[in-house]
């Protein structure tokens, strides 16, 4: 928009260019509407007064949000989801970060292939992973489904994202910085702590945040691997069997807000890389002096 001139305005390639462009714009609008209109209605209805959501809209009211907070079963599902996300994220961030190092650095010929194998679960259908895990836990290991089986299930699909993000950051990491640290008297462990980890911290944080959002939202794999407890998505699913209540809309709206917030944070973490590195580096540096 800098020059304010659309090249198509200056160069009518054909007589059809103008109407075609208008048509494409309209089409883009339709696609956007298709993507976001349902979500917009869901958010809108969560503020509606009517018990059976629909038009015309009456409200707004926070009634369904109060209802949501006083629903013990729902709150328990939320709490399970939070614990699940916390444990799964911690483990997948740890394992994923450690896996990224040999993938980027060992320099073995099949590093590219290894990366594909590591990140393949991103592309596999959730149902497939879910069924495979279910069979594995029940038939191969012979264990009952529980909180820990669902944690494993979540690690399977969140860890690849951590591997992907952290190894991208490691790829661009200047090895000279490690040499410089060693040159200045840092043992490999201290070079890792004072130089490498602070510099890849933004990627680790971004990976962890994405892992949290994925875990909180995940339905399919949870459904196959979870024990007697319900998580937020499985609770919503069971509720919907009895019809979509505005309460479910309220829960989903909160979930949406949380997800957007976490993704925003992950994005900011990547953008504020230097500041984050400094925070991580500094705390460690102070430890040393003190």
């Amino acid at each position, binding site marked *: 928009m800098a020059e304010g001139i659309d090249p198509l305005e200056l160069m009518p390639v054909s007589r059809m260019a103008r109407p075609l462009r208008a048509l494409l714009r309209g089409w883009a609008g339709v696609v956007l509407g298709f993507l976001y209109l349902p979500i917009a209605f869901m958010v809108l209805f969560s503020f509606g007064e009517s018990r059976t959501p629909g038009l015309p809209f009456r409200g707004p009211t926070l009634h369904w949000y109060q209802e949501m907070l006083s629903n013990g079963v729902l709150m328990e599902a939320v709490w399970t989801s939070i614990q699940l996300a916390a444990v799964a994220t911690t483990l997948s961030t740890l394992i994923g970060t450690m896996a990224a190092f040999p993938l980027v650095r060992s320099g073995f010929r099949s590093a590219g292939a290894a990366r594909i194998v590591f990140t393949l679960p991103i592309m596999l259908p959730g149902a497939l992973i879910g069924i495979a895990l279910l069979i594995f836990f029940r038939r191969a290991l012979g264990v009952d489904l529980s909180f820990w089986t669902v944690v494993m299930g979540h690690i399977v699909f969140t860890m690849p994202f951590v591997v992907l993000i952290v190894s991208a950051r490691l790829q661009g990491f200047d090895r*000279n910085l490690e040499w410089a640290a060693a040159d*200045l008297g840092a043992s490999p462990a201290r070079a890792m702590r004072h130089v490498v980890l602070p510099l890849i911290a933004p990627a680790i944080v971004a990976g962890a945040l994405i892992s949290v959002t994925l875990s909180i939202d995940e339905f399919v794999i949870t459904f196959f691997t979870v024990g007697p407890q319900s998580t937020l998505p499985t609770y919503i699913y069971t509720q919907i069997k009895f019809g979509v209540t505005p309460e479910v809309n309220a829960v989903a709206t909160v979930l949406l807000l949380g997800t957007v917030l976490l993704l925003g944070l992950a994005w900011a973490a990547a953008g504020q890389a230097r500041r984050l590195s400094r925070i991580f580096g500094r705390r460690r540096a102070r430890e040393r002096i003190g």
Partner: protein
Amino acid sequence: MSVPAIELVDATKRYGTSMALDRVSLRIERGEFFCLLGPSGCGKTTTLNLIGGFIPLTSGELRIEGQRVNDMPPHKRNVNTVFQNYALFPHMTVEENVAFGLRMARLGSGETATRVDEYLALVGLEAFHDRLPAQLSGGQQQRVALARALARRPAVLLLDEPLGALDLKLRKQMQVELARIHRQVGTTFVFVTHDQEEALSMATRIAVMSAGRVVQSGTPRDIYYHPVDRFVADFIGESNFLEGVAVRDGARSYVRLGGGSTVDAPADAPPGSVTLMVRPESVSVGPAPATNGEASLSGRVIHVAFIGNHTRVTVRTPAGDIVALRPHSEGSASSALDELLDQEVCAWWSPRDSTIVAHGSTEKIDERLV
């Protein structure tokens, strides 16, 4: 003799089948400003990385201050490096960068602060304590890298083309600065460059490298006026090469050149087929030599070029073209040279200023060095 700061004995580094360094032996004395000079890919960085401990030797021996350090990891070696791309820690301020090496040495915080101030002052960056590397110019980053490496007071400072990324003016300025800092701290400097002028002007000694070997090492003067072979002579400045046969006749030796002319040769010329080298600035051009005993060739001036501080005169003689570089001042001298074009003249030099160089393979040269 005292213990040298660095000693390489037959140091060899092989990558697969390619030899990055081939039996290099060097002795660098304490307090020297030692330059590794050579074309791209000749093994300068490899040599520095071996000394720094970043890559292991394939065979041979490396001693720092008399101690064999082949298997010592870099963080235990008493040497520090200024990397070509500076390798400043981007998440630390200037102050934290310089303090890093001191912290790793577990120096007290008081002593650390004093040292940081001292070395930032040495490189003229007192006012930049809290800047991040990204907020500094290339020249300033270079100075931080220097202060960071020197603050540990290493026995040897390694510098890998530290001025390579700077523009010409800043480069000249930093050359002067580096020389001053070297005098001030007295540390041994091992300096890598592929700029012959930089090496000549700064080094106490130079090792000229080619294809993983040290072809010649010596003082700048030595290397400039008495290169061992055509490669060194060509790499360092412009030269006139004359092919001929050296003849010893009693106390006098001379070289019979192509075209039937003869010139007096340096006293140590070995009889036989030789290449005589003389630097352009040693050659005078005029009607005839002013004194006796000069080596002299007559010919026709085919080119005169004004190149700023000098005039470059090319004389075509039966033995080949001779280039003479003459200083001039504005006015009479330069116009006198201009008028030489197409004239029959003499080009002459003192036999002491010429030298016999080898022109064979590097194998031959190594034999001469052993």
